[in-house]
């Protein structure tokens, strides 16, 4: 039996033990996060910090009638220790629940079936990885982080549901700097480390890095025709994912897409966005163990087709759930491609800006769909279809009803995967797939 299979079986046995402590009328859902991760952080192509983390977190979702309590405790893998901690938590829930007011929209605990997926990888050892990562870049100024190891998301409930998803991978999220301290961004993510592929990945960035040493152009405020690369578009989709397509946020007046619903506005026919688990980057089951549809159109050719609806929102607002997570955020966004070929991008810009990356996006006016943020890393001034020079960072403040609406002129015929490298609290899984776009009259304000 593999180590991962043992973890899976142990979790199921642990779950059954804990469920035996439930009383009549009580239900419990358990969500498990486990990881064994190695992080190596770099600056100046040298090692700044190394950290290995073995950790587990167990989420208890306790329901008695219409009372619901969530309780998160540590999970060590030692059955006795974990059962003791989880039992204390469960008893606290059992004691508190009768004194709480009902939540009329508390979802029912039901058996959402069984699934098991284990994805393994071939990765360098922790100790050798630092040499592998730094050797091809040792003559450059590199900053970044190498992350390697496995992650588990699992879920059971007292009605018999069992879901397990494990994945193993590594990523090198990095940036390279010129002597003038100008940078390009790179990402190598894989389940099968290849020295050759990694070297090619670095070489690909070096071509852009050479351009960064040209004299920098200070572009005045104004409206420009821009190319937003797949990486830049992924930043925009990322901010749209914050309250944007949540049905609860829409109903509570906080969604940027509310105008599409209320005023029947449409975006460009060239813009389509879906929740697409066929990308295979994350588990389809949510924190309740509900299996989302493999593909759900959210915006289809500019038309708002669906919000993300959790089972709780379904009860509250009387609409059908599409088994979104509790936050009703996209877990596997996929934006559709168009017909602009890679070799035609500069020609299509004509004169304007080529933006590889964006930074620190935020809604500046969410109700009108306005987003502000900065250009970052390799961004260039283009004239007559030729890259002229890198630019001084610029602030934009633009409305998504413009840049995904009448301002959206072309979409590339290719898209790129941006793996979710977030490690706040725990290591994330998943990612998104986005193409590049050409937008007219994109507003820069500082």
């Amino acid at each position, binding site marked *: 039996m593999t180590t991962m299979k043992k973890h899976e079986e142990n979790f199921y046995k642990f779950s059954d033990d804990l469920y035996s402590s439930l009383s009549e009328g009580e239900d419990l859902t358990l969500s498990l996060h486990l990881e064994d991760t190695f992080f190596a*952080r770099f*600056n*100046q192509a*040298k*090692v*700044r*910090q*190394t*950290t*290995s*983390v073995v*950790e587990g*977190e167990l989420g208890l979702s306790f329901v008695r009638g219409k009372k*619901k*309590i*969530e*309780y*998160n*405790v540590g999970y*060590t893998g030692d059955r006795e*220790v974990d059962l003791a*901690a989880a039992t204390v938590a469960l008893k606290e829930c059992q004691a508190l629940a009768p*004194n*709480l*007011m*009902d*939540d009329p929209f508390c979802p029912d605990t039901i058996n959402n079936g069984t699934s098991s997926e284990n994805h393994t990888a071939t990765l360098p050892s*922790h*100790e050798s990885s630092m*040499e592998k990562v730094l050797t091809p870049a040792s003559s450059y100024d590199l*900053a*970044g*982080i190498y*992350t390697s190891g496995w992650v588990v998301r699992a879920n059971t409930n007292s009605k018999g549901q069992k879901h397990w998803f494990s994945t193993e991978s590594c990523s090198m*999220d990095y*940036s390279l*700097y010129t002597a003038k*301290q100008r940078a390009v961004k790179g990402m190598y993510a894989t389940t099968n480390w290849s020295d050759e592929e990694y070297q090619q990945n670095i070489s690909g960035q070096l071509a852009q890095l050479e351009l960064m040493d040209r004299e920098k152009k200070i572009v005045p405020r104004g409206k420009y025709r821009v190319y937003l690369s797949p990486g830049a578009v992924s930043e925009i989709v990322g901010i749209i994912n914050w309250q944007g397509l949540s049905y609860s946020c829409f109903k*509570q*007046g*906080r969604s940027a897409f*509310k105008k599409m619903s*209320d005023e029947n506005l449409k975006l460009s026919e060239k813009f389509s966005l879906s929740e697409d688990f066929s990308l295979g980057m994350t588990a389809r089951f949510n924190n309740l163990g509900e299996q989302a549809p493999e593909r759900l159109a959210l915006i289809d050719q500019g038309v708002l087709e669906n919000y993300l609806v959790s089972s709780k929102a379904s009860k509250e607002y009387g609409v059908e759930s599409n088994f979104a997570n509790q936050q009703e955020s996209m877990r596997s966004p996929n934006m559709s491609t168009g017909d602009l070929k890679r070799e035609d991008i500069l020609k299509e810009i004509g004169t304007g800006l080529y933006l590889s990356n964006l*930074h*620190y996006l*935020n*809604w*500046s*006016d969410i109700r*009108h769909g*306005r987003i502000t943020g*900065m250009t970052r890393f390799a961004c260039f001034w283009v004239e007559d279809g030729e890259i002229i020079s890198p630019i001084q*960072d610029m*602030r934009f*403040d633009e409305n998504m009803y413009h840049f995904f609406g009448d301002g959206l002129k072309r979409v590339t015929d290719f898209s790129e995967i941006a793996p979710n490298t977030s*490690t*706040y*609290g725990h290591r994330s899984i998943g990612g998104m797939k986005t193409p590049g776009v050409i937008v007219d009259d994109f507003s820069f*304000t*500082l």
Partner: protein
Amino acid sequence: MKQELLKALSTIKGEGDWVALRHVREKGHYFMARDARLDNTTMWNDAGVMVEVMINGQIGYAATPDLSTTSLHAAAKRAREQAFAASKRGVFTFDQSVRPPNKGSYRTPVEKPFADADLAKLTEVLIKGTEKLKSNSSIISTNAMAMNYDIDMVYVSSNGAEIEQSLSQICLESLATASKDGETQTRSNGFISKQMGLELLNENEFYTDCTRVGEEAYELLSAENCPSGTMDLLMAPNQLYLQIHESIGHPLELDRILGDERNYAGWSFINPEDFGTLQYGSKLLNVTFDPTLKSEMACYNFDDGGAKAEKEFLIKDGLLVRGLGALESQKRSDIPGVSNFRASHWNRPPTDRMANLNIEAGTSSLEEMISGVEKGVFMNTNRSWSIDDYRNKFQFGCEYAQMIENGKITKTLKNPNYRGVTTPFWNNLKMVGDKSTFEIWGSPYCGKAEPNQVIRVGHACPTCLFENIEIFGGQ
């Protein structure tokens, strides 16, 4: 726990030239009421140990939730192997001076421990708060939230550090969204974050404030849009604290200046030679790192590297004099710093973080500042924020504003925003409020570092007046 850690340390201290164990247990509660019902009840209780091993001047970190001897030994071995491998390519060779052998303790002064609270009663207060927030039928959504963190930390090291600290932190939020005739506006209490117990929540004051928040949300529906133009900006502490955070705190972090953060949070426009020479702001600007201001979110006696924490001026009379960097960064950069080596939890290594970062009170009353404005806007409570990776070009939006004309507040404004560049902005600081305008704010959500860490910070400041600021409204 200290005795258990010391016992474990005695068996693993031979794994490196220097070894430390940092145990953290965090317990917390999160209660959210929405629209006169309980919406979310979440609790947590999590603990683990970070094992630190120094070999050849490199420190390897290995985290485990399993406190057994076997697990701690395994973690120490991992940390040692990592440190050894890293020592061939380390960015700097450290010694034990970056981990001082201090002994001591700290405990948040708490009048009403959250652990003793009647939790059901607390949820009822929040539910009633949402009823107060619904000041009229145009309020379409109301939220009231209380959250706390009780953190116990023990740190012991092979060179003699023995530190025990217990922090109690609490956050309180109320929020109302009003909508009518196609206009929607949200007003909140600004998300109060303090280091104290449940004494923060005075029931009657909370209800009164919820009523104010609901009324101001409604008031915004009929308010004029904020005008656009270059004018004076009077900023309340509930917005100024985030301006301090983003445009003073982050650029002064020494690890950013050293380039550690370049791939993620970003670099800094500050260069090492700017310390002692750069006029960061007007002569009225005095900024301190102050871990001693009672009830501010990030009070402590020792940072997570064991260094004693004391109040220091970072900017004195507008001049940049000191960075936000702990002993490792001070050693690397030869720039004076502070004790701000902090980790978000047991499973992350410490880095240079903000803690309590404050603007000292000045001498102007609120009335004096308002009366000195010919044309300007008084902004309250952040709703949008963004700044570049060098911490230069920023843009902020607020929930609520008032027009000031000829020395008087004349009307309420909606959708107020402003933008600027850091040092010109702070050099436009025209008046600094006195102690009567001084307030303590903070946030539990400062994100930084690879691997990522969210840390809790405090910012205290008076109301301040800035001149020649680019202000603009919404659509």
